[in-house]
């Protein structure tokens, strides 16, 4: 079985499990009293946000190693992770405002967390455009690696922006030094969703990586 086929199977399993997350979140997880049903957006928004940031961290780490080792597989992985991160960032930037409207009374506000996440999305788009615009594979890989490292530097700023600035965005209730401030049933749903988003990330990256390697192989022929 090829890597692309393994990726397709992994993605298929991830999508089936995503349906199970929907059933669990919508039918078997209690409604939060203050926010109402809109709070359940959290079960998709936060795992997508975690993988948006993690995907860029992996792009940056692969880019650093690429600049030292000059191994094209690292560049291919960075390209794959960036495209998948863009898909997850799109989920974050659409589900977030849909939650914000009923809870904050506005779709968008230019606070530090939201603005820096939007900047990360534009950085992802810029990264993909750069890869499409530069024809020479060596130059493309070097330029992309520099941009990927810039993205890596942005991620800690996004994560800690809620501590550094006064923002409307809620403080972390799970990824924080103390124990999660979430009832067990809700936490289980969130962890299930995070696991499914992890499977989807792996499945997507396997397919995208196989595609990048196949295209590079075709260019060298």
């Amino acid at each position: 079985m090829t890597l692309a086929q393994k990726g397709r199977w992994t993605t298929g399993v991830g999508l089936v499990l995503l349906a199970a997350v929907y059933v669990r979140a919508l039918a078997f997880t209690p409604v939060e009293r203050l926010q109402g049903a809109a709070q359940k957006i959290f079960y998709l928004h936060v795992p997508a946000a975690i993988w948006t940031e993690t995907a860029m961290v992996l792009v940056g780490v692969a880019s650093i190693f690429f600049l030292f080792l000059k191994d094209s597989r690292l560049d291919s992985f960075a390209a794959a992770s960036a495209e998948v991160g863009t898909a997850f960032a799109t989920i974050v930037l659409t589900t977030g405002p849909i939650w914000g409207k009923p809870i904050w009374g506005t779709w968008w506000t230019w606070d530090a967390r939201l603005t820096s996440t939007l900047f990360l999305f534009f950085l992802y788009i810029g990264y993909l455009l750069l890869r499409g615009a530069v024809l020479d594979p060596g130059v493309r890989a070097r330029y992309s690696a520099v941009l990927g490292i810039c993205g890596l530097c942005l991620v800690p700023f996004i994560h800690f922006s809620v501590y550094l600035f006064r923002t409307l965005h809620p403080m972390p209730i799970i990824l924080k030094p103390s124990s999660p401030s979430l009832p067990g049933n809700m936490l289980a749903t969130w962890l299930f969703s995070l696991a499914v988003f992890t499977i989807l990330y792996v499945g997507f990256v396997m397919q995208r990586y196989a595609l990048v390697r196949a295209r590079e192989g075709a260019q060298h022929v």
Partner: protein
Amino acid sequence: MSDAVPQNAGYMVAAYIVAAVILAAYAASLYRRTKGL
């Protein structure tokens, strides 16, 4: 102060549909691009 739970399920449904569409569209795009591999 009212103890009533806010009635905003429509926003939840919209967000779940949007996320499903994005993930399904991206999965379909990858499937189409990698079909021969």
